């Protein structure tokens, strides 16, 4: 049986207020990924795409545009949780012999206005009909509800949540593709413009244009043989959708249901994970992921941030490239940026921000915000 491996990751430059359509970014990411492994389009027989704005096009018409003949294709419908799932599904498809080389793409072409328009009208029916008419403020308003309750129930503080923004900005200063690289202090975070209180400006991502790509291939393929980079494997994966059913505001995420099995399957304990690339749409969700993934107890996520060195030099580096909070959220690319960063780190090609210990990573995805919360969660354990 073949064993799938990730051989390359690529990312287009991110752009503020982009004018090109999402397809342009997706195609560019695809070509960058192929160039990275010296492959041709004819080497690719599997494609996975996640993009909120791609319609009326889809993965099949993207294949048409690229001239690919696919035996396996996949399109993401779980928001920011989908790209991580696409990577594990690609690996599964390759292990099952359904394809030999799969490119996973995620990207969009947003600015702040276009992103708000999507959340107002085009994201899903429940949001359009039962949230937008209140002026809910998009996902900022919804995750503000989450943070208010978390602070009430567990005593978490804005000073603690701010540590995520500050640590990630320090990482972003070493990432040439991050859109936000200016100095950010905890004071800047605390006193920033209110958006949906308790959330302020640096709790929120910057919608932008861009696309990310990952190339997954079978160990015996020509693409794998030609690669001179360290092979990265998906050691374990998990996902959950609409958990817990019927809970519009929730302080725990679906990862809590499968985190134990995820690590057991990977043959690891929490202490074996050398870096976390978490879905950072908001610092409150970073804290909730830490709790849900079992790195700390329920309700202790913010305190964990205060007591743990999450910098690149620390015990548990988080979002070593700056994350979405400092790089920008190119729509669905926000769900793949963590995989890309993890792959670069594990391959030892992360440049100035390279971690010394880079054999294992846990990457998480989250999204498809429906009536009040992200419905889907996902995670991968990667090893090299």
């Amino acid at each position, binding site marked *: 049986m073949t064993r799938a491996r990730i051989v390359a990751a690529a990312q287009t430059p991110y752009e503020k207020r982009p004018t090109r359509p999402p397809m342009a970014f997706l195609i560019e990411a695809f070509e960058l990924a192929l160039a990275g492994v010296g492959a041709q389009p004819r080497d690719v027989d599997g494609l996975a795409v996640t993009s909120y704005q791609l319609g009326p096009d889809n993965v099949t018409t993207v294949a048409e545009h690229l001239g690919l003949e696919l035996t396996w294709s996949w399109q993401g419908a779980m928001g920011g949780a989908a790209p991580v799932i696409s990577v594990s599904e690609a690996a599964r498809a390759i292990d099952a012999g359904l394809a030999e080389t799969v490119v996973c793409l995620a990207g969009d072409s947003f600015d702040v206005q276009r992103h*708000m328009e999507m959340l107002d009208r085009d994201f899903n029916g429940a949001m359009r009909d*039962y949230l937008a*008419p209140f002026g809910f*403020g998009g996902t900022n308003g919804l995750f503000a*509800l*989450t943070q208010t309750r978390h602070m009430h129930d567990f005593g978490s503080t804005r000073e603690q949540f701010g540590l995520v923004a500050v640590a990630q900005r320090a990482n972003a200063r070493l990432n040439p593709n991050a859109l936000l690289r200016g100095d950010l202090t905890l004071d800047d975070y605390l006193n920033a413009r209110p958006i*949906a209180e308790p*959330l302020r400006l640096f709790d929120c991502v910057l919608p932008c244009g861009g696309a990310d790509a990952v190339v997954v291939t079978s160990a015996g393929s020509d693409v794998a043989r030609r690669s001179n980079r360290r092979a990265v494997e998906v050691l374990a994966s998990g996902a959950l959708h609409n958990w817990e059913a019927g809970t519009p505001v929730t302080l725990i995420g679906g990862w809590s249901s499968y985190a134990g099995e995820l690590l057991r399957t990977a043959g690891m304990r929490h202490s074996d994970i050398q870096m976390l690339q978490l879905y950072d749409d908001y610092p409150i969700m970073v804290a909730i992921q830490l709790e849900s993934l079992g790195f700390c107890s329920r309700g202790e996520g913010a305190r964990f941030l205060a007591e743990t060195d999450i910098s690149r030099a620390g015990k548990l580096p988080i979002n070593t490239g700056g994350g979405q909070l400092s790089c920008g959220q190119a729509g669905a690319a926000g769900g793949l940026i963590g995989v890309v960063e993890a792959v670069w780190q594990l391959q030892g090609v992360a440049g100035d921000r390279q971690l010394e210990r880079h054999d294992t990573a846990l990457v998480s995805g989250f999204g498809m915000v429906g009536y009040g919360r992200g419905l889907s969660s996902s995670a991968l354990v990667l090893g090299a």
Partner: protein
Amino acid sequence: MTVAKPAPVVTELNGPFMEGARQGVLLLQRCDACGTTSPFPPRYACAHCGSYPLTWFESSGLGTIYSFAIVRRPQHASFEDELPIRLIAVELDDGPMLISALEDGEPAIGSRVSVMFRDEPTPLPRFRLESPEFPRRS
């Protein structure tokens, strides 16, 4: 000229809910087969036992604030005239949780609220702080 605010799409499914709202009544759904009260928003079938259709019933409209947020940047320009928006999550006494807005006063976790509806073509349930000065509509 005022910009039109985003409005819900009225369908065959939520039609009764919207009509109730126009009459000042919060309608929720219940499954007659298994007795479960359905979560909000309106749906076609029971999430618990799969039966359909569900039955509409009139909610007491009373609930408790579970969480809140003060929205200063709405997702649509038409809301600039009513900033800040006091977004709330309400646990209704009848069971479901709704996301809504507090019409006046300041929200706090644990505050008791009662439903109200604005005089507009497709109103959604909003809430007021329950207090002796604002008795519930009888």
